[in-house]
């Protein structure tokens, strides 16, 4: 898997090198609602929300998919990608929002009247029917002439390379063959869109590779839209025209595989797609960013002065030079070096940040080296957020209530008790404690993300609020912890509309 992955990125880098610099900065045509003409949209979801037993699986999602494209929904398990697919297929009804197929609202149309077909995760072949009857099932319902059905089924069998397998029992088929039957069964109905729910998940590595290629070839030949769900970033990047990265029911980024890899929209995407070094920094001015205590030239602009940002550096973009070389920007120590076939993967500690580096030249463990990164190797991303915002009420002369707890604050504006207010708490005003009783309120750790030197931790409180903070310690997911807030750093503002 790694090998194909690598080959794929090699292709990227070559393309990048061949093109003039100005062009690389150009954004690729991305699938967003506005740039797509109405006639080009095959699937569109608007304001889609799905809540299961009080848990929001999909959160106000908007997405338009272009006719004829191979689109992949990519995200970690539980991110809502399969639910989105099931809503489009019609197996789930959205809590809110609409689904359009070819600009027709199909939100309330049952699955058996939608012009889409699905290849299920574990194929869901009908075990009581043979291969031929499995594929013919959809056509038989359409009351098509028997002769025509036989022709179409045989053509479908030929397409998936299973000629002569019609009479076979599905239990006699291998995993790969079952998968082909599932694809043939869906495609024989000539759907407008083929939905594929992790169809390669059950196959072994080699078979998966072969099927990837076959699916891509099939997509090219048939010209129908493929909507593909996977948690495998390599699969997504290799196969798709467009990748939709989803996390926590929210679309993080939509773009071509290249754009997603080269210009991740945020730390989550950077972390999820391939290996990367994610570091927090400050944008000093256009084309200049400061991180790890040094200033670096970069190719990004348009940020506020001194705006806090996240930046990503891919392991292959870091160059390693001998100690003292002028080209290096940081001095580091090699912690480990592993040969990975075509390159060495090294962990290099520099300015207290542990870089993951891939290089064709080996540096020995314990060596002191100089490392550098070219301006176009630094990708600046907007920080997802750096303050926590809550809504609450002022309860007294210098007390405010939010998250079900009362805090003292510095009431400089003289806000009177009973006023509804917006409360901002900076990340650095929040600290976490092992013992819940040491904090102002308790919560459960729901996510941690390593950002170099520190972790960004998300804590979910009992009052359904999320606290974000940066800590040097890694916290275990689901741990019960105490949240302590520096009361002097609580900023309270009247709600705008009340003024």
């Amino acid at each position: 898997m790694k090998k194909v992955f690598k080959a794929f990125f090699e292709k990227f880098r070559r393309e990048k090198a061949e093109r003039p610099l100005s062009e690389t900065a150009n954004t690729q045509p991305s699938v967003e609602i506005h740039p797509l003409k109405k006639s080009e949209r095959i699937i569109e979801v608007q304001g889609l929300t799905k809540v299961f037993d009080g848990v929001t699986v999909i959160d106000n999602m908007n997405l338009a998919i272009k006719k004829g494209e191979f689109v992949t929904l990519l995200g970690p398990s539980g991110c809502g990608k399969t639910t989105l697919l099931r809503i489009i297929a019609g197996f789930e009804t959205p809590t809110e929002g609409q689904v359009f197929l070819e600009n027709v609202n199909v939100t309330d149309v049952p699955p058996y009247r939608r012009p889409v077909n699905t290849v299920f995760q574990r194929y869901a072949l009908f075990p009581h029917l043979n291969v031929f009857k499995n594929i013919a099932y959809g056509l038989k319902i359409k009351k098509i002439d028997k002769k025509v059905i036989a022709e179409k089924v045989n053509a479908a069998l030929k397409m998936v390379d299973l000629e002569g397998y019609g009479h076979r029992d599905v239990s006699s088929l291998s995993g790969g063959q079952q998968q082909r039957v599932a694809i043939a069964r869906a495609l024989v109905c000539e759907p407008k869109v083929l939905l594929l729910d992790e169809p390669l998940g059950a196959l072994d590595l080699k078979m998966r590779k072969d099927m990837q290629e076959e699916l891509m070839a099939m997509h090219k030949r048939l010209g129908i839209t493929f909507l593909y769900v996977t948690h495998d970033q390599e699969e997504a990047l290799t196969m798709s025209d467009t990748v939709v990265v989803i996390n926590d029911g929210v679309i993080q980024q939509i773009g071509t595989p290249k754009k997603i890899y080269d210009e991740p929209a945020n730390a989550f995407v950077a972390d999820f797609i391939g290996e990367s070094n994610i570091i927090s920094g400050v944008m000093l001015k256009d084309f200049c960013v400061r991180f790890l205590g040094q200033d670096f030239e970069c190719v990004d602009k348009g940020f506020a002065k001194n705006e806090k940002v996240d930046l990503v550096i891919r392991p292959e973009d870091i160059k390693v030079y001998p100690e003292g070389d002028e080209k290096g920007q940081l001095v580091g120590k090699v912690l480990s070096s592993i040969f990975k076939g075509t390159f060495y993967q090294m962990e290099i500690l520099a300015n207290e940040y542990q870089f993951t580096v891939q290089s064709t030249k080996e540096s020995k463990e314990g060596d002191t080296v100089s490392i550098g990164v070219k301006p176009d190797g630094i990708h600046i991303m907007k920080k997802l957020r750096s303050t926590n915002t809550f809504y609450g009420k002022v309860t007294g002369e210098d007390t405010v209530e939010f998250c079900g707890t009362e805090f003292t604050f510095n009431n400089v504006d003289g806000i009177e008790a009973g006023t509804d207010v917006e409360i901002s708490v900076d990340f650095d005003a929040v600290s976490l404690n092992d013992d819940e009783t040491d904090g102002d309120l308790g919560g459960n750790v729901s996510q941690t993300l390593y950002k170099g030197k520190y972790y960004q931790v998300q804590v979910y409180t009992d009052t359904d609020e999320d606290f974000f903070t940066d800590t040097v310690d890694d916290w275990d997911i689901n741990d019960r912890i105490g949240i302590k807030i520096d009361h002097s750093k609580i900023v309270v503002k009247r709600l705008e509309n009340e003024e």
Partner: protein
Amino acid sequence: MSKQKKTLLLSIVFLVIMIILTYLPVAILTVYSFTESKTIGVWNGFSFELYKELFTDDEILTALKNTLIIGLSASALAVVLGTLAAIGIHSMKKAPRMVMESINQITMVNADIVTAIGFMLLFLFVIFIPNDYASLIIAHTVICTPYVIMSVLPRLSQLNPNVYEAGLDLGATPVRALFSIILPQLIPAVIAGFALAFTISLDDFTISTFVSSSVETIPRFLYNKLKVKGVMPVLRALSVFIMAAVFVVLIVINFFSMRTERKKQQIEKNLGGAK
């Protein structure tokens, strides 16, 4: 090694003793059904005379006919009701499903005599059914249905839930998907349920006695004859015959459940070990 062998030997001896104790009464009955002697313990030489008598005795044949009519109709009704009920229960949410499963078990665990008295009172004071066959079939359907549900439910939860959705996806309406996808896959469990229901009906004495006084089924015939004439030799043959019928039913059940299990495993195995 020798200790292992000893343990193995011991467990085999234990098993043999257990089987002998369990099947001794039945075995004695079976052996003495092939001789004409008046009492058990006397061997008058091998013969099929008792079986000949069994199939020529009008009373016995009537009882057999009644048993078959009631058993088959009650099982058939129970299969239809039970299968549909199982599908309904299966698609419920967890809490109501647990309640339904418990309610289903109550009828199975409840003492027959209580159910029997219940039916008697029901048919005496609430619903009047002029035909004794009908009331017997109704009563037997009620006691058989839970067994069909019990047989079909596990099979339903083994089904790949996506298979039904695949049907909808390919254009089948929910009703069509139910008949063309779900039911065919339930057939083994339905047959097993039918067989189980039939043995329950065949076996029933208490409820039949309380519900109807005129229709004599085999268990009632046996009891009445024992009361009046003592152990007639022909009853030995009848008992063995019933036992053989139940035995055949058991083999059918096991054959079907084994075959579907094997097929399912084969499909899973070919998928390559993943969950």
